[in-house]
């Protein structure tokens, strides 16, 4: 690899520059690097989303109290009392009418008369340390607060985290597909260049060139072309990501598609990886063609 980077001026000159394979390689590497930046951003964003959902939902639970009229307040107090004495719970508080209204607003609008509707009282529970014993708490609540239903979010947390995890896996799969496609395209371009230079290869062999020397001349050229194209594609991709709108609470997932902090360094791995793919693809194609031509 060091010899590849240092180069051999004469070996480079031995193979004439071939226009269309050069352009094809640079364009392919640029396009694939551009797509890879977005696939990487998708993968990282979904990873962050999965972690955040898992973290937030795992640390909180909700207690819903549906009691007959007149008993709501007493049952709420009793529930809070139970929760305060339950190990593994750091805080428990009843949601105010305003908070309840805000939760329902997306579905019923801002003018919902919460106070006139039989809406259950919600209590937010924040776990501490290893969390609480849900079975034990349910048993206590059943005895002391008959209208209470404990929801530890397991039921809807799992599919959400699972979906985010799958999205992340799709992003990684897309990156692998991009690497594979880049390798395949560069292999085709290298084979075309080798076929176009059959006479050159024959002359080099006749003057005593070993296959590794001939392959190196092609491999270095294609590796550098892929590196150049990937640098351009990565720069364009990073600029595109940079110009995306800032993430905000209302924006949801799409505006969160981007890199955070040191994550901006990750796309910089794409050009060397593209060069590595080109190196492997061209070397394999060159040695295969040279073997077949002997």
């Amino acid at each position, binding site marked *: 690899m060091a010899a590849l980077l240092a180069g051999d001026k*004469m*070996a480079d*000159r*031995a193979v*004439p520059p071939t226009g269309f394979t050069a352009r094809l390689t640079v364009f392919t590497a640029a396009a694939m690097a551009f797509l890879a930046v977005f696939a990487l951003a998708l993968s990282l964003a979904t990873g962050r989303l999965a972690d955040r959902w898992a973290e937030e939902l795992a640390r909180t639970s909700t207690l819903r109290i549906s009691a007959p009229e007149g008993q709501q307040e007493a049952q709420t107090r009793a529930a809070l009392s139970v929760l305060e004495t339950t190990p593994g719970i750091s805080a428990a508080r009843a949601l105010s009418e305003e908070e309840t209204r805000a939760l329902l607003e997306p579905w019923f609008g801002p003018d919902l008369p919460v106070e006139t509707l039989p809406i259950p009282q919600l209590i937010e529970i924040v776990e501490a340390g290893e969390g609480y014993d849900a079975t034990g708490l349910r048993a206590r609540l059943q005895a002391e607060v008959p209208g209470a239903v404990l929801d530890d979010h397991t039921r809807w947390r799992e599919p959400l985290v699972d979906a985010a995890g799958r999205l992340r896996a799709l992003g990684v799969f897309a990156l692998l597909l991009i690497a594979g496609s880049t390798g395949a395209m560069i292999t085709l371009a290298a084979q075309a260049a080798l076929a176009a230079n059959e*006479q*050159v290869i*024959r*002359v*080099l*062999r*006749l*003057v*005593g*060139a*070993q*296959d*590794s*020397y001939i392959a190196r001349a092609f491999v270095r050229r294609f590796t550098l072309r892929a590196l150049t194209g990937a640098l351009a594609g990565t720069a364009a991709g990073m600029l595109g990501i940079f110009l995306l709108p800032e993430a905000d609470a209302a924006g949801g997932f799409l505006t969160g598609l981007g890199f955070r902090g040191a994550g901006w360094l990750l796309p910089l791995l794409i050009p060397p990886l593209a060069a590595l793919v080109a190196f492997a693809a061209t070397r394999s194609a060159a040695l295969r063609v*040279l*073997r077949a031509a*002997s």
Partner: protein
Amino acid sequence: MIELENVAYSYGGGELFSDLDLSLQPGSFHFLTGPSGAGKTTLLKLCYGELVATAGDVRLFGDDVRGMDRDKVALARRRIGVVHQDCRFLDHLPVAENIALPLTVSGRSSEGSDIDDLMAWVGLTRQADQLPPELSGGERQRAALARAVIMSPEVIIADEPTGNIDWEMSQRLLALLVELNRMGKAVLIATHDLTLIRAAKAQVQARVLRLKDRRLVAAGADL
């Protein structure tokens, strides 16, 4: 250095030649003659490992060609200078770089080599920066000879080296080959050019072999 023993070569279902023996030793000078299609070029290719005999043994510097991998054949070719009938240059490189190509592919720098002297020796100093297609037939042959000898090979093989050049130039080329032979190089030349053979025999102890009826035989006394 190069030995062929009971060698046969067939292709397309037909046998080109068989039971062929040839030994190229230091300081030997051989001419190979025969009608077109007799297999002269094929025989030369067997001598530098481009083709593998269908029967018999070919040894390059003591190694059986059949047991040599491609890299080893490439190393052996660096010890054999070949002048091809069609010269075979890299047309995008200047003449000087084409002549230095054997040095380049073997990882040796052309700087400090005798390339300038060699260019002067073959009379191509002024053409050093020209591209091969810009050279005349004779200049191409001389450039090919310079490329063949730049590694100071032990054997020089030439396929119709005077095929595309006039008499005066062929005499000049022969003089170069004779000079190399006197330096101890083995020389094998395939040619139809009887005047070249006669001129060479006047200067060196040359053996003339003829490929005829699928056999390699010593040529008649008239040569």
